């Protein structure tokens, strides 16, 4: 095999961004992809059956995303929206971290424009939900000019804002009042696989109704009350409620694969869109996730403007890589190596309550935290994976985060990126490096890891197509024949 043909110059990573949740971008002195021995692998060369992308692309990439969004929006029924009505476009914070955030912002702009053009309605607002960083979408709204675009009617909403009870099939749950204070709602989301360790690719397209658009009681139900695999029903219960159904107009999704934006998908039937998203999540992301499971040992690098678990490599977040020692899509295994349910079930002595609890991915010999944000409880990561944080500033930032008071209790600090990497090489004895830096279209890794991934990719691709994908879809009650119709 000619490995060098498949190894390219490192892809430019996502740039550090100013945010109250991260250090000043000027303090990020070096990126690990710039270190000696790093290369990039293009995902469409590893997995040639991945569909073509709109973005990353040439200078017209964003225009093409816009065009795809408009075309999809023209096909959906908007007749329920009258000129005198009000409409809330509902967005989630994670969309703004995909491929630099611009494509999702473009989708939100397209929705506003097309709805106004097709319905004559002018009272169109943006309600952008968050997780735990309550100012996060406020930052994105300003960064992408959405406040101006929505005529000053764009706001971030948080799970501690005023609530509204919603009666569901399983009892009362609680939404955020400002999400539902319009005649109609439009669910604007994406097919990025994100927290497959939590949602297990079950009802992923519905999840924001139990997360981004919901009060803390509902989020707590998801993460504490129902169990790791039943939890996803929380979102479906809210979505199926008479109250939400009476306001739901349609869903508009940015279709993403691990390699980029592949299109837009709009539908009045969220479950139909949900089934299509399941294919994207299982088939396209499933291959790269399974390939990550083939890594025997490595140094994992965090180098992306997002909290620790949400940094990206090849469209996969670090939290999922910490579970790559197991098949996260296989519903038969109840506890992934990392979810809050798993984290909850560790004793005072650091041992799991249940013996069969899988450990965090033992292939990760060390984590080099070159650049990542606060705003997500991350102590479990540094407690279970040896962690080196670059620069005192990041350590200090974590020490002032109410969710991460303990993160630095288990991490050490290095003065520079170079020294952190050298320390990691010396201690782990491996030169295999995977960088979670949001490189678009491919992934930045060391040459030694690139070689391993190139060797394993064909077999992984075949195994997913022939063995794993049919199993995953069957477990989710999704008709596999739809796959052939989609071809």
């Amino acid at each position, binding site marked *: 095999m000619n490995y060098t043909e498949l190894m390219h110059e490192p892809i430019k990573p996502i740039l550090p961004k100013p945010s109250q949740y991260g250090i000043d971008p000027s303090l990020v002195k070096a990126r690990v992809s710039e270190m000696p021995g790093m290369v990039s692998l293009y995902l469409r060369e590893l997995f040639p059956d991945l569909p073509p992308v709109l973005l990353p692309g040439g200078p017209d990439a964003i225009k093409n995303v816009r065009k795809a969004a408009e075309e999809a929006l023209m096909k959906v029924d908007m007749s329920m929206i009258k000129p005198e009505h009000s409409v809330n476009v509902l967005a989630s914070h994670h969309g703004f971290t995909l491929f630099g955030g611009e494509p999702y912002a473009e989708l939100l702009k397209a929705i506003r424009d097309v709805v106004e053009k097709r319905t004559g309605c002018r009272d169109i607002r943006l309600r952008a939900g968050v997780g*735990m960083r309550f100012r996060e979408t406020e930052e994105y709204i300003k960064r992408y000019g959405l406040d101006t675009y929505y005529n000053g009617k764009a706001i971030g909403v948080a799970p501690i804002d005023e609530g509204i009870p919603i009666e569901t099939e399983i009892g009362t749950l609680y939404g955020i009042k400002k999400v539902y204070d319009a005649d109609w709602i439009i669910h604007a989301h994406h097919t990025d696989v994100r927290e497959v360790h939590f949602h297990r690719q079950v009802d992923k397209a519905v999840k924001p109704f139990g997360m981004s658009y919901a009060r803390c009681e509902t989020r707590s139900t998801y993460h504490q009350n129902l169990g790791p695999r*039943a939890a996803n*029903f929380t979102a479906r219960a809210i979505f199926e409620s008479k109250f939400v159904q009476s306001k739901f107009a349609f869903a508009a999704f940015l279709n993403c694969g691990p390699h980029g934006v592949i299109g837009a998908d709009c539908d009045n039937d969220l479950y139909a869109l949900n089934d299509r998203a399941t294919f994207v999540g299982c088939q396209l992301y499933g291959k790269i996730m399974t390939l990550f499971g083939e890594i025997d040992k490595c140094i994992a690098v965090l180098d992306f403007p997002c909290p620790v678990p949400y940094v990206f490599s090849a469209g996969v977040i670090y939290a999922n890589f910490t579970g790559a020692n197991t098949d996260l899509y296989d519903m038969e295994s109840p506890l992934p190596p990392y979810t809050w349910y798993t984290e909850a079930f560790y004793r005072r002595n650091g041992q799991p309550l249940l013996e069969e609890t899988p450990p965090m991915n033992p292939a990760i010999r060390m984590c080099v935290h070159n650049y990542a944000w606060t705003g997500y409880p991350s102590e479990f990561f540094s407690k279970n994976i040896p962690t080196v944080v670059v620069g005192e500033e990041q350590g200090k930032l974590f020490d002032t985060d109410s969710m991460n*008071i303990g993160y630095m209790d288990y991490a050490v600090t290095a003065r520079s990126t170079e020294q952190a990497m050298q320390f990691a090489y010396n201690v782990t004895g491996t030169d295999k490096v995977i960088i979670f830096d949001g490189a678009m279209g491919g992934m930045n890794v060391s040459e030694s890891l690139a070689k391993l991934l190139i060797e394993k990719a064909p077999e992984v691709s075949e195994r997913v197509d022939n063995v794993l994908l049919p199993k995953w879809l069957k477990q989710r009650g999704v008709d596999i024949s739809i796959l052939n119709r989609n071809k």
Partner: protein
Amino acid sequence: MKRVTLLAEVQQDVCRGCKVCEKVCPVYAISVTDRKAKVKEDACRGCTNCESRCPFHAIKMVKREKPFTIGVDASQYDSGKIRELCEKAHLNPEQVICYCVGVRAEEVAAAIMAGAKTPDEISSVTGIRTGCTIECIQPLLRLIQAAGIELKRDENGWQWYGVTPTAWTLPEDVVQKYNKRGFYFEEDKQLLDRVVHTNPKGEEKK
């Protein structure tokens, strides 16, 4: 246990007295009088909710001159009674229920046994709900309810609204209707029950 290192500080010239801060503070450490917010320094647990939701950015978090630690030592209370209360709430005493601060069910049970009766009182002494402030409300309410204490919501605040469904309250028809779609209701309930009834030696009570 939580080390409280931060304190909310109101910029009086920016504050407009809108009261959002007092509606979102989990420990009622901030309130508005005469159209200005004021912080009870001893009561603030440094969660940042007021700072994060103030529409006018009138509040900033500052480092405390004298940080302090809060927490309830569960080993000082009857372990049998702690287990009984936790199991009634379908929780294992050692189970973590606050991921930010690391508060375990047994600590909340001990706080209740020490006399804390409301979510804000329990948060104040244990630190639960003073990290992300959103994920741990349900097990906290479950424990209070299991102790036989009546839950009474503050109609003027947004601190919490009410208890929500659990694995043990799901209607059977819902379980039957949706369990083919990847929702492993029964299996997860069994898993949670195993966790609840695992004792300190690792033995599972059937």
